[in-house]
């Protein structure tokens, strides 16, 4: 390529505008070939030896250029292939990392949910371990799939929403327990889960109202009415879940006006309309106590069934 440039400019710079313009166009074409394909270093490597013969036919020149270009494009294609292969090789590592981190975060939830199941239905130790193992196996598969989505996100693709981790663990335990418990045990477990769900909703409702009270100065009757309105209109899509309620406890969630306005006085309505409101449905947090304190699962006394189910050998 260097040679081609020398041929083109064998007469040297004249400084005259028309010559410069022609030269610029020629250079543009040549550099386009040179740089779009594979870069300066490659172009030098692939360049033909300098041609001094100015009488060389245009056809030969074009053929030469095409050949050079083809060689460069082949190198470019190989480089792209290599890069894609490298990305593919890197992705499983991302998946493993995201999976490990996610699994670590859901361990305490898995343990507390397993405890709840144990307290509610008092399974035999064999039943408990079987349920834990089966739930752990399917949970890990699901987390791997979620981790793959996260890894895709790391690679610049659109992530899918990660579901409520507690709900996820509970679903897996419930499915695993289904075939391993008696009908009576299953009914007791389901009843307990329903009571726990109500309890969590109640915690969120009370906190929404307590927070609104600071902004709207509700009286005691209004507080009770508002609690009742939120309970009766409860919809997981409209209300925050427990974890964001702890983390963002001073934020006002978006609540449909018709749930709240009939309860408010005019002065309160005016302030309600001016409040900043936030939608929490996409917030994911796994810091249940909203503090800087970190609880190691080992300090919290992880039991052997959890260790086996989630892939860690119990202490001998």
């Amino acid at each position, binding site marked *: 390529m260097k040679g081609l440039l020398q041929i083109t400019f064998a007469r040297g710079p004249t400084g005259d505008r028309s010559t410069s313009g022609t030269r610029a166009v020629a250079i*543009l074409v040549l550099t386009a070939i040179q740089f779009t394909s594979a*870069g300066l270093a490659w172009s030098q490597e692939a360049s033909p030896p300098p041609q001094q013969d100015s009488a060389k036919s245009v056809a030969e020149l074009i053929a030469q250029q095409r050949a050079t270009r083809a060689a460069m494009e082949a190198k470019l294609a190989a480089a792209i292939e290599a890069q894609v292969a490298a990305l593919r090789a890197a992705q499983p590592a991302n998946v493993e990392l995201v999976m490990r981190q996610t699994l670590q975060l859901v361990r305490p939830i898995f343990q507390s949910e397993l405890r709840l199941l144990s307290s509610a239905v008092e399974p035999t130790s064999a039943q408990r371990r079987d349920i834990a193992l089966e739930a752990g196996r399917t949970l890990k598969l699901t987390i791997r799939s979620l981790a793959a989505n996260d890894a895709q996100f790391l690679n610049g693709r659109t992530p899918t929403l990660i579901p409520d981790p507690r709900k996820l663990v509970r679903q897996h335990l419930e499915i695993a327990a289904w075939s391993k418990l008696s009908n009576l045990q299953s009914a007791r477990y389901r009843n307990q889960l329903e009571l726990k769900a109500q309890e969590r909703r109640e915690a969120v409702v009370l906190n929404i109202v307590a927070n609104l009270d600071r902004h709207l*100065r509700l009286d005691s009757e209004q507080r009770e009415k508002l609690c009742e309105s939120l309970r009766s209109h409860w919809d997981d899509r409209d209300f925050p879940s427990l974890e964001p309620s702890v983390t963002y*406890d001073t934020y006002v969630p978006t609540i449909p006006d018709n749930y709240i306005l009939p309860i408010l006085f005019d*002065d309160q309505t005016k302030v309600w309309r001016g409040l900043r409101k936030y939608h929490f449905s996409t917030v994911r947090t796994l810091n249940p*106590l909203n503090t800087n304190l970190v609880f190691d699962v080992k300090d919290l006394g992880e039991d052997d069934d959890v260790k086996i189910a989630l892939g860690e050998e119990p202490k001998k």
Partner: protein
Amino acid sequence: MNSTPPITPTVARFLFRESGYFPWPITWRTMLVLAFLLTRGGDVAQAQLGKALREAAVREAAEVAGASYDIDESMFSQWVYGAGTKVASVPEHLESTLMLAIEDIDRSCSLSEAQRRKLVLAGHGDRKRFLDRVADARRVFERLRHDPDGPTEIVKYTGPLAADYDFGLYGEGSFFAKTLATTLTPEQASRYREAQQEKLKFRYRAKVTLILASLDTYVGFTSDQSRKLGALILEETTPPRRVGGPYESEVVLVKIASLPESKLRPILDESQWKTLGAIFEKFRGMEASLRASGNLD
């Protein structure tokens, strides 16, 4: 032809930005610039080009970190009033919250017209004081908005203003609160205290319920255990004096952790107690600092 054409820092910076990492991917704009360089000088020494690019990158990084730093003017309003709030609507919001505060008192104490007027006057005093503080903070913002270390200092001014704006200007230490304390008759004051105490209890109950539900993530209470624990905590502890502080959750947790083992343990099984004990241990360690900062009575 032997002399290497000059690559100015500007051109080199442009090339560096365009290519991201040299030598490719290179955009059409970069190719135009390269073509231009070659027409002016022909044979460009790659080594010098590379060196110029590296130097340009360093200079650019220095520029990004230094002289070019600028916080957009609109950020000040966002920090104080929140995103999406129009500054023009601020006085109206402050007036609405003042009227709401007065109506709230009126609902529990039935204020006279004279009392109401005094409270309005005091509230306007608080509003003026708040807007003066906003003006001071803006001056700090203007002084530091080009300084990379500025945000830390600016937030010291805007943070408390945002909290006051969100939760009203008429709390403890305000002209409004002082006027209220001297304006109400003893009977009105008693009714007002009662209403405030009810609010406090409601909030504490909400917080305790929330903290228990959060602890449940680690411990796995049955609904019966949660109910018994909630009743025990509300019976044995008192609400914190300061409501809605930044460490409200920690304060409630320290209060729960200070309950005697003899009362808590019978409600839980062995493994639950072990988990809860490990959590409480960490929160007990926070007690002294929470007391020292005035967050815990």
